[in-house]
């Protein structure tokens, strides 16, 4: 517990040390939503009843993808660059527990970002919905987050292997967000991409949230989506942890932990 708390405290301290980061968190949702908002306006909202709210919920939920990939995977790359990764991991504190502390901080930061993006962008661009349904949506968002963070552990393993994370993090976040239906219904994707989208937990978490808050028909019946999310959460958490442990063992044995 002490290791998790220490890692959490370290990441929190680093975040608040660079106070301009807070400005980024405030502005990011407004900036990244702007192209979608103006695209929606250019087409008069298209066939959507309320495209702004549809896309805003998409941006808020998929912002967790960025938090996971940048917060867990990319932060390992930063440790590599600054030369502290090997020293930290050779200490008696378990690397997995150090990573868990980072995951918890990332979850706190991601939730703050997500709520802020809904609140701030909601005020600026206009957001509507049945918000009393939000507590029910947590039953879908919870397992989605477990699955997403499981994926994040596996992604952290990948960063340890390729030792460069900028493009794969940036592109990975964008691809997963788009496939999850961030800015359009998954049904409007080309068939091959739609099949991929149906294998992502964020697709179901976002779809359930939109159905409950904005109304409309879900992709699958909601109880089915809930069961799928529970299965994905268990599978991705187990797979992500297994990948991370395997890669960690490999880089330790190969002696490449300090390389970048």
């Amino acid at each position, binding site marked *: 517990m002490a290791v998790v708390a220490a890692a959490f405290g370290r990441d929190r301290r680093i975040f608040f040390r*660079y106070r*301009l*980061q807070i*400005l*980024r968190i405030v*502005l*990011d949702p*407004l*900036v*990244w939503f*702007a*192209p*979608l908002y*103006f*695209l*929606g*306006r*250019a*087409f008069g*909202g*298209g*066939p*959507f009843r309320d*495209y702004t709210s549809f896309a805003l919920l998409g941006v808020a939920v998929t912002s967790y993808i960025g938090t996971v990939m940048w917060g867990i995977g990319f932060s390992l790359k*930063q440790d590599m*660059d*600054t*030369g502290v990764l090997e020293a930290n991991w050779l200490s008696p504190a378990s690397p997995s527990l150090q990573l868990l502390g980072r995951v918890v901080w990332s979850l706190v930061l991601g939730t703050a970002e997500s709520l802020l993006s809904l609140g701030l962008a909601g005020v600026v661009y206009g957001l509507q919905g049945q918000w009393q349904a939000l507590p029910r949506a947590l039953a879908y968002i919870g397992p989605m987050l477990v699955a997403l963070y499981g994926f994040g552990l596996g992604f952290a393993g990948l960063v340890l292997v*390729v*030792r*460069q994370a*900028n*493009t*794969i993090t*940036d*592109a990975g976040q*964008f*691809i997963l967000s*788009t496939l999850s239906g961030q*800015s*359009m*219904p998954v049904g*409007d*994707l*080309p068939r091959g991409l739609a099949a991929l989208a149906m294998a992502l937990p964020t697709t179901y978490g976002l779809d359930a949230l939109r159905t409950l808050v904005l109304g409309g028909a879900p992709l699958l019946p909601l109880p089915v989506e809930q069961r799928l999310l529970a299965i994905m959460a268990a599978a991705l958490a187990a797979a992500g942890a297994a990948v991370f442990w395997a890669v960690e063992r490999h880089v330790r044995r190969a002696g490449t932990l300090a390389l970048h």
Partner: protein
Amino acid sequence: MSALWAGVRRSLLMKLRYPDFWFAYLAWPVIFPAAYLLTAGALAQGGHGFAGYRADIVSGTLMWMWVNVTCWSVGGALRQEQTGGTLESNWSSPAARWALLTGPALTDIGLSLAGMVLGALECTLLFGVRWAAPWPVAAAVAVASVPWVLGVGLVLAAMVFWAKDVSVMVNLVRGLFMVACGITCPLAVLPGWLQRVGGALPMTYALDAMRGGPWGTDLVRLLGFDVGLAALGALLFAGVEASVRRRGALGTY
């Protein structure tokens, strides 16, 4: 000149060392516009006008990507040296500092420009994009944009020295271009006050020329931005760097 060449070589070596190099320059410039094309397709639902709109989206998103990559690479490279602990030693060497900075910067600008040109070709083949501007105009816009893009990069590099952070600065600058230049829509869709902000940014005119606007006027304006932004970037960077050296803060991050 040898320091400049050494900077170019080092930057190229480091880029080719990592396996994501090819993905960054071959696949990413198609994936990014494709996401907005798919969204526009869902909004248009096969309606009229979407075919002509594709080129607007592709030109806007690719141009923005170019600025984005430059912002990250010029400012980010300095930040990486700061955190990696090599900045102070490299910059204390007798090599000209402008060469240490512009070598990697020009490599990045050139490589990412090549990536964007390739992305435009790929989008033309994959999505049937029909361009409003003839290719000599597009090439002239690209060439005329190099100095102002470099100028933006230098301004960011100065900010990295000052703020000891790169991500916030990059987000602010690229965010401004993203919101105010109409990367996914014609400028007329933006509210009036935002159009006026866009009017003060060079990317607006580069996009206007690419989208079939009066390219002669746009190119003259771009040249004005070239002089202004390149000079501003160079002056700002020189000033901040001198101040950081005086305070002995080159190695701190």
